[in-house]
């Protein structure tokens, strides 16, 4: 009983800002600064969502974000699966050193390499294009690490049995290994999706003078800046941008928790 009370209190504390964001996005601007703040919009102004959508060009930005995120997630899955399989099942020279190098990349903050990355990407001609937004992030040390742990869980006997049946590496990977580590794959997808969707600094620097590849995070910041005192419109824009994440959270709740705690176990 006590557990439920505590959990409910915790839920209220965590969800309250989100609830207030929705409430404020539906209030007319004059009511937002009222003291005490209204807890329910009795006169919901749905127009603010309309305004955020059109004035913030959110349709274009959401599309760009969707493309960018899908490419990054797909890329990270593919490269992580292949690298993790290699580290788990193959023997090759300098394996341990290479794995160490992979782990080292996790320890370098992204901001340290931004200037060099930007120069490299621009000299490749990828400034203000989708490749510029996505290719630097197609491989990740975290994903490799996570999936290697998952692959190592597969019993040796299964591998040997497959070898007896004449399965080569690729077939074993596709038919046996991947289905077995599906939870870890889902966890990695969710983690990558969150990371890619929420990126701000890199898209800000790589996008140029038009709306071709600007993502929704930049679009939101622009909306907030251009709408200034119209807090309801800014909040409406933020809610619209957060909806895909909320859907993801609800559908993949279990995997998300697993991915967040994966570093803690074993």
């Amino acid at each position, binding site marked *: 009983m006590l557990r439920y009370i505590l959990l409910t209190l915790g839920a209220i504390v965590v969800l309250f800002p989100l609830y207030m964001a929705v409430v404020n996005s539906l209030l007319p601007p004059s009511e937002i600064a009222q003291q005490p703040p209204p807890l329910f919009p009795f006169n919901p102004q749905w127009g603010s969502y309309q305004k955020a959508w059109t004035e913030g060009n959110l349709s274009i930005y959401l599309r760009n974000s969707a493309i960018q995120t899908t490419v990054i997630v797909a890329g990270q899955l593919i490269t992580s699966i292949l690298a993790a399989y290699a580290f788990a099942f193959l023997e090759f020279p300098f394996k341990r050193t290479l794995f160490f190098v992979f782990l080292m990349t996790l320890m370098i903050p992204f901001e340290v390499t931004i*200037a060099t990355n930007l120069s490299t990407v621009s000299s490749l001609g990828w400034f203000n294009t989708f490749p510029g937004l996505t290719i630097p992030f197609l491989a990740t040390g975290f994903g490799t690490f996570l999936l290697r742990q998952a692959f190592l869980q597969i019993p040796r006997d299964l591998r040997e049995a497959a070898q007896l049946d004449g399965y080569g590496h690729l077939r074993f990977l596709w038919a046996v290994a991947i289905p077995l580590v599906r939870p870890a794959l889902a966890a990695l997808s969710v983690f990558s999706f969150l990371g890619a969707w929420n990126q701000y600094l890199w898209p800000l620097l790589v996008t140029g003078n038009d709306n071709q590849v600007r993502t929704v995070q*930049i679009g939101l*910041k*622009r909306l907030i*800046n251009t*709408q200034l005192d*119209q807090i309801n419109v800014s909040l409406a824009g933020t809610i619209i941008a957060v909806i895909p994440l909320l859907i993801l959270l609800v559908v993949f709740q279990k995997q998300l928790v697993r991915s967040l705690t994966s570093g803690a176990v074993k």
Partner: protein
Amino acid sequence: MRNHRFRFAAAMSLGAAALLMTACSSSGSSSSSTTTASTTTGTTCTPSALDKATSPVNINFWESMPRANGETLQKLTDSFNSSQTKVHVNLVVQTSYADTWQKYQAGLTNGQLPDVVQLQDTDTQGAIDSQSILPAQDCITGFHYSVGDLLPRALSYWNVDKVQVAMPFAVSGPVLYFNKLAFQKAGLDPTKPPTTLKELVADAKKLKSAGQGGMGLKLDPWYLESELATANQLSSTTATDAARGPVPPCSTTQPAHRSSGT
């Protein structure tokens, strides 16, 4: 590896057509060519340079003007573009002044710089140090542009070592709002609002003791700097320090640095 784009006095023509608005920013010409440094002799930015350039010259103008200011700027730009065919200004709306500066700095590494950029006053020295901007002085000299209709104080704010580095554009001034009803209730005269910092503090104390709130300050460096500049307390010299008297560190009873406000 820099792109070489030469954009010149067209920027100044835009400046001539533009009006002063009321936000907090300045505008500087920037060109990503390597002939930069501070040429103030009016050799780069001249009408003949404009004639020699292939028209229409395309200018990317990075700006982050909020709401009505942004709309006004768009209208001005449209009317400028339609009034002549030599220069076309392309407004690129950035997310915020701070982000514009970040993007500009990133652009120094890959040559993706704008032709005209709107930066905050706090970024002026940084822009000079980047050695990538063409001072407005060059265009002023080259076009024999008269800056007489601009406020001297606004001009001087972006004048470094007698060189007009940037043109004031959409310069903000903080304003003081006071609640007339609260004034009445606290026994103050609503037709006589405070005109000096000293009076401001005294009135705020009266308002507070009458339960009418007091004074709300936005602790943003720009606000403090502007208020001090307005009160002519911006730079500290021995004379002003002496006039100010011993200043106690921030305490709850006496606001620091305001005791000798004029």
